[in-house]
């Protein structure tokens, strides 16, 4: 703007309006209720990012969102997890949110269960794997969405693609979460009469070794890599390409670079549900009146490169149905 193009009075008016806006905008935001989002993991972790995305999309403009990441994927010790929980607790006490949303197991395990059982402060969890029995949920002040994978459908699909399959291997990171997943898959496999074995790795080399071993099974179920510290996707892809002969399936979208067929959960569904429930609670609905439910969305992905390298032939209807993983 050229100097003097407007009358000084108008310029003053604009300045005053700007000052008023600076004061009014935060004040307007301050009228919104407070929603604290406690993530068990860290930003950059694909699953957590998806949950956060769904949550923020649902709560945007309806409450003030403050996020705390416990980062328990990278901080592996029990003490670190407890310390992170205490930090979250301190934040709750200082910021005094109207509702707390937590994502994944560790927030439930280290924050809700020890400190907020039947508390006045409402909690909405999401991303807890398979069951909440171990945390004693639901409490009066706690409800949420459990994270389940379409394990049964996935195993049935794998059996259908590998006629006569009776032996499978589960590969994942050597973490408590993966152990929990493995237990579920074991049960589902055994229900379907499959011989189940698992290999949980702490390093990429161990994971590649497990993958190589898996070539002796009818098919491999790929668990999450979260917890393998030296994970490098490109290295992993490079390592497995010459080894791949067997069908691999997964329920984690971020494992698709190293998996042929994905029936993957949708993390946004967890965040959206948690956000919707939080809004209901903010509207006065008692948490205990909202049932704990499980997610039900999943999507179908294919990795054509791996499928080709293994020289597998998939049914045309599956090839035309599955999304091509980019």
């Amino acid at each position, binding site marked *: 703007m050229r100097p003097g193009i407007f009358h000084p009075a108008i310029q003053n008016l604009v300045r005053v309006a700007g000052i008023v806006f600076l004061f009014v905008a935060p004040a307007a935001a301050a009228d919104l209720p407070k929603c604290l989002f406690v993530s068990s993991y860290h930003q950059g972790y694909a699953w957590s990012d998806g949950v956060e995305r769904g949550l923020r999309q649902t709560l945007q403009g309806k409450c003030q969102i403050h996020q705390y990441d416990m980062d328990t994927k990278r901080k592996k010790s029990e003490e670190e997890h407890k310390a992170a929980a205490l930090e979250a607790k301190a934040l709750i006490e200082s910021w005094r949110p109207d509702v707390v949303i937590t994502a994944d197991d560790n927030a439930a395990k280290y924050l809700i269960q020890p400190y907020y059982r039947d508390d006045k402060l409402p909690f909405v969890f999401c991303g807890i794997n*398979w*069951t*909440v*029995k171990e945390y004693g*949920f*639901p409490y009066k002040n706690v409800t949420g*969405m*459990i*994270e*389940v994978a*379409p394990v049964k*459908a996935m195993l049935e699909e794998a059996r259908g693609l590998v006629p006569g399959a009776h032996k499978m291997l589960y590969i994942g990171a050597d973490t408590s979460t993966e152990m929990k997943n493995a237990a579920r898959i074991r049960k589902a496999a055994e229900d379907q009469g499959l011989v189940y074995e698992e290999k949980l790795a702490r390093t990429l080399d161990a994971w590649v070794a497990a993958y190589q071993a898996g070539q002796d099974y009818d098919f491999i179920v790929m668990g999450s890599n979260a917890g393998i510290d030296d994970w490098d996707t490109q290295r992993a892809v490079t390592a497995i390409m010459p080894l791949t002969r067997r069908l691999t399936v997964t329920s984690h979208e971020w494992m698709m670079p190293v998996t042929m067929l994905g029936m993957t959960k949708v993390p946004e569904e967890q965040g959206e*549900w948690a956000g*919707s*429930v939080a809004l*209901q609670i903010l509207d006065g*609905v008692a948490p205990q*009146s*909202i*049932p*704990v*439910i*499980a*997610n*039900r*969305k*999943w999507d179908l992905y294919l990795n054509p490169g791996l499928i080709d390298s293994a020289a597998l032939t998939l049914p045309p209807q599956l090839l035309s149905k599955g999304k091509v993983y980019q």
Partner: protein
Amino acid sequence: MSAIRIGRRRVVAALLGLLVVVLALGIAIRNDLQLANTAFHELDDEIETTLTRRLDNLNASLRSLSGMHHAMTRLSQQELSAFGQEIGRSHPYVRAILQLRLVDAGERAAYEESFQEAGFPTFAITANGESGDLVPSPARPGYMALSFVEPLDPGLARFLGLDFYSRADLREAIDQAVRSGEISAAPATPIGKGAFLLLKAVYKGFFVPTTESERLAQVHGVYGLVVDVPAFLADIGGGPGLHLSTWNTERPVTLFRQPEAAQPDWVARFLPDQHADIDISLDPTRFRISIDRTLDSRALRPAQWMTVTATFVGLYLAGVLVVFTRLRATEAARDAKEQLFQEKERAQVTLQSIGEAVITTDPTGVVDFLNPAAAQLTGWGADDARGRHLNEIFSLVSEKDGTGLPDPIARALRDHDESEAAALMIRSDGATIAVIENAAAIRDSDGHFTGAALIVRDVSRERNLLREMAFQATHDPLTRLINRRQFERELAAVVDDALNSDSQHALMYIDLDQFKAINDSCGHMAGDQLLKQVASHLGENIRRLDRLARLGGDEFVAFFRDVDGREALARRSATTRST
């Protein structure tokens, strides 16, 4: 009388004006009501068309859901969710898609456990509603538990596990759906207000069983669409007063009733109620949409009424003005005619009764009217005279010298319309009558000469009377000789004549001797008779130019014009000798 008539007319005009105002208002209001009624029925048609289409869409969606269920060996919640989302996106009035799963009593625990294991730790089949009956009886196939809902939001998720069969109002619709294999409808009371349910049963196997008993035996569950009424009625101007019923059986069931409209304003209280029933069939289920509402007072347009009324009133006033003007003109003409008639009557009577003869002619002098006096005077009957020229009726001559007088009509024109003259009328039979005639020109409003009126008065009597009076003043009544005064007047003139001229005249005095004795002896009658005889004899013996007078008593005097002394003596002798 006229004032009364005008006043009455004004009252009538005012009443008619009021009637026109009422009529115009009535027409305008009726027009608005008709428009509103038409709009209402057009709305009916729109509602019927739209709701039929939407019900067809719901029917198609539900049948697609049912078809997909039957076609697939295994239908996961994920697949159902994907399908349900599309239905929801396509039909915004579908609040939710439900799956009610038939759970036998013996399978209840296992069913609940399977849900709990699948991530629904609190899932349980629960009762809701009137009966609260969670114990399947021989009359019911089992629980109809809500096992799927799309969208899965916190509000709807709380109904998972709800046994819809535990509600009496839903049981009938579920039974109907199961038995018929077709769509049935029910209130969506358990799910929420402002919605209704469309239900369709699904069965084991790939095809819907063909018999009712088989359908009852093979039922797998029921799919339902929760239809949100406000959204279902959106964009069709449904408004308040809508009432949707259905007949799954013979007994109608109210699916929803729109809240009553807000208390209508006072105008609306006077407006007619509108009602329409729209029947839509999703065979075998029938739906009826009833619309009961009071006409919206906003449909009335007072400004339009004022315009229409003003137009009518304006036309009426213009008409009244024309009528009044014509009436007044007619009345004025009638009054004038009446007045003219009266004037004419009065004139006729006057003319009939007056003593003067009145004759009117056209400009050429042809008679067109005679009054009775004129008829009597002229000796012509009115009818006979009419059409004849005035000259044929009579002629006028000078009273003095008997010369003909000019045409009185021409004289009237010449003498500026009116002239009077004394004349002698010579009738066609030759009789002569002294008259005074007055002629006047008759002119129209433009001054054109249209005829003449001739008024003729018979003055012969007056003339005779004057003549008699003059005679009596100058003559002796007994002997009819000039009297002493006249004699002296004439004598003076003669003397003057003699003095001024060279002429000679003679005077003779006569006195009757012993006349008194005759009077005394024979009486005055005899004396008078004697005097008359004397006068007669004397008169017989004098010339016409001489004068004989009785001075009084028995005295007579005569003078002889232009005589000398000798002749005078001779005249004396001749006169006295004869006596």
